[in-house]
């Protein structure tokens, strides 16, 4: 493709401590992050955060909160956001912290799909290691789930970030992206037993579908939208928009993660090129929820003007437009080819779909068990199996068991994953951030996605980390902080 798009994934993990409740979750998540045993820096720079800014040109007075969730905080004296947060920056450039009640792992920024999927997977190991350390320190048995729902009406997110030119604006991004966001779940949903809002169903494709109420807004905690308009670029706002995608699921199958990101990148490239297909979906929220619950796999989508199309057609329109109008790179070609092969197999070749798509793997596992045990969809153990599919402990996880059996695509090897806990191998600004953490922690005073602040002989030096510059791995070999600062400045010039 002509333009590379920098991307990252931030995952809020579910956390269960034996003998503790949801009201303890903020404290428990903070303690878990603080017990992370690996190398890290403490000192996140909150100055550049602006979660209430809206792409459409205004700023919300406050973000809406879930009134049911707020009850857990009654009688508790939690302070301001930064006072109830443990924040760690890792030598791979990732951020590991507690976002209110959840441990959250934000991958380093990556250019390629493979690298991002690897880092997303490495994040599971980071959180698992922190949980093991916290279990040893606290005496509590702990389970960590990489999922997005508690089956009681609470949801927590797996968000994607894509850095795109500011000139696109909401006006171009929204129509180009929305249809893709509505139908992407067919190829990337994590699957869920039952429903938490609306009409009852046995199983649905998306973990998050029940929780969307608007087509577009800047909220993330309540009244969630399909298209999030938060305008917080983590880069020069004159040049960049960080598209904040909140409607995806947490994936256990790395290929599913890669496909999830690849499909959005495809839509973004078409948007940049002004060749995105235009679909006027009559009611995007209802369409999202109907696709999630469509056990016929027909995926009909009502359009404005009493017309209709299908999820397959919408996806194919993006593929055809990309092939016709873009100079495709290897990631884009893989995304199209792999997605088409799954769409083709849907309904004809179940093993192909089950090995590559989380919802299909989960459904196959559950139906196998139901048949073995003679139980139906109303059996309460099915939601427990759904949950344990997402357990990050490889000795407990049902997804890991499917992997061992060869029923789902394998995870990356330890040889690929472990080095990515301490290093970023693509020349993104995460290399500079990670090198600063690994080499110059004694001088480092604050870190954000877009800056590093050092204290040298009593003077503070703040360095910008532009997102569109290459940061070579040689930066990690520099042993002198002054030389490092000069090397970064040279790259910004």
């Amino acid at each position, binding site marked *: 493709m002509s333009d590379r798009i920098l991307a990252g994934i931030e995952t*809020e993990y579910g956390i269960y401590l034996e003998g503790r409740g949801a009201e303890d979750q903020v404290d428990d998540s903070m303690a878990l992050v603080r017990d992370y045993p690996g190398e890290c820096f403490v000192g996140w720079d909150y100055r550049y955060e602006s979660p209430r800014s809206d792409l459409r040109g205004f700023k919300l007075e406050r973000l809406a909160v879930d009134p049911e969730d707020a009850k857990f905080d009654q009688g508790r004296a939690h302070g301001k956001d930064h006072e109830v947060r443990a924040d760690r920056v890792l030598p791979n450039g990732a951020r590991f912290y507690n976002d209110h009640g959840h441990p959250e792992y934000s991958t380093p920024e990556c250019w390629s799909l493979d690298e991002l999927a690897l880092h997303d997977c490495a994040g599971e190991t980071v959180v698992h290691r922190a949980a093991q350390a916290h279990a040893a320190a606290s005496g509590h048995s702990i389970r960590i789930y990489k999922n997005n729902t508690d089956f009681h009406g609470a949801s927590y*997110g797996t968000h994607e970030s894509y850095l795109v030119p500011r000139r696109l604006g909401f006006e171009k991004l929204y129509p180009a992206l929305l249809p893709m966001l509505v139908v992407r779940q067919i190829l990337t949903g994590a699957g869920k037993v039952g429903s938490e809002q609306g009409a009852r169903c046995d199983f649905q494709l998306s973990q998050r579908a029940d929780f969307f109420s608007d087509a577009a807004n800047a909220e993330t905690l309540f009244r969630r939208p399909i298209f999030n308009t938060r305008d917080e670029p983590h880069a020069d706002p004159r040049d960049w928009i960080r598209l904040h995608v909140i409607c995806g699921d947490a994936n256990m199958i790395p290929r599913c993660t890669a496909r999830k990101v690849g499909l959005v990148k495809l839509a973004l490239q078409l948007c940049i090129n002004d060749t995105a297909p235009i679909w*006027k979906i009559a009611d995007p929220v209802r369409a999202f929820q109907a696709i999630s619950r469509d056990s016929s796999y027909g995926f009909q989508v009502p359009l404005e003007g009493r017309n209709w*199309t299908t999820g397959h057609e919408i996806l194919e329109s993006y593929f055809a437009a990309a092939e016709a109008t873009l100079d495709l790179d290897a990631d884009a070609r893989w995304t199209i080819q792999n997605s088409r092969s799954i769409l083709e197999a849907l309904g004809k070749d179940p093993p192909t779909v089950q090995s590559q798509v989380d919802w299909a793997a989960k459904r196959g596992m559950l139906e*196998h068990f139901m048949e073995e045990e003679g139980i139906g969809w109303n059996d*309460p153990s099915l939601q*427990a*199996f759904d949950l344990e599919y997402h357990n990050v402990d490889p000795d*407990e996880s049902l997804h890991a068991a*499917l992997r061992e059996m060869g029923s789902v695509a394998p995870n990356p090897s330890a040889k690929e994953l472990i080095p990515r806990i301490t290093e970023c191998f693509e020349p993104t600004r995460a290399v500079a951030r990670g090198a600063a953490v690994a080499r110059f922690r004694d001088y480092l005073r604050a870190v954000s996605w877009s800056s590093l602040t050092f204290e040298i002989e009593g003077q503070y030096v703040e360095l910008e980390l532009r997102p569109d510059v290459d940061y070579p791995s040689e930066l990690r070999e520099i042993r002198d902080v002054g030389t490092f600062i000069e090397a970064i400045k040279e790259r910004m010039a």
Partner: protein
Amino acid sequence: MSDGDRLTRPLTPEPGKKLGDESGPSRPEVRKPGGGNELLRRMKRVDPDQAKRYRQRSGE
């Protein structure tokens, strides 16, 4: 992709099919995981009430 006609017309020929038509594609067969001992062993070890007890704070 600017042909407005294209936007509402499926590529695959399904003449006469309208929204609300009941004759959608049938659900595919579900594959049974092969050699399922490890999976079944783990599934039988799962506390069937684990999801009932699992309560989380709402997140982003």
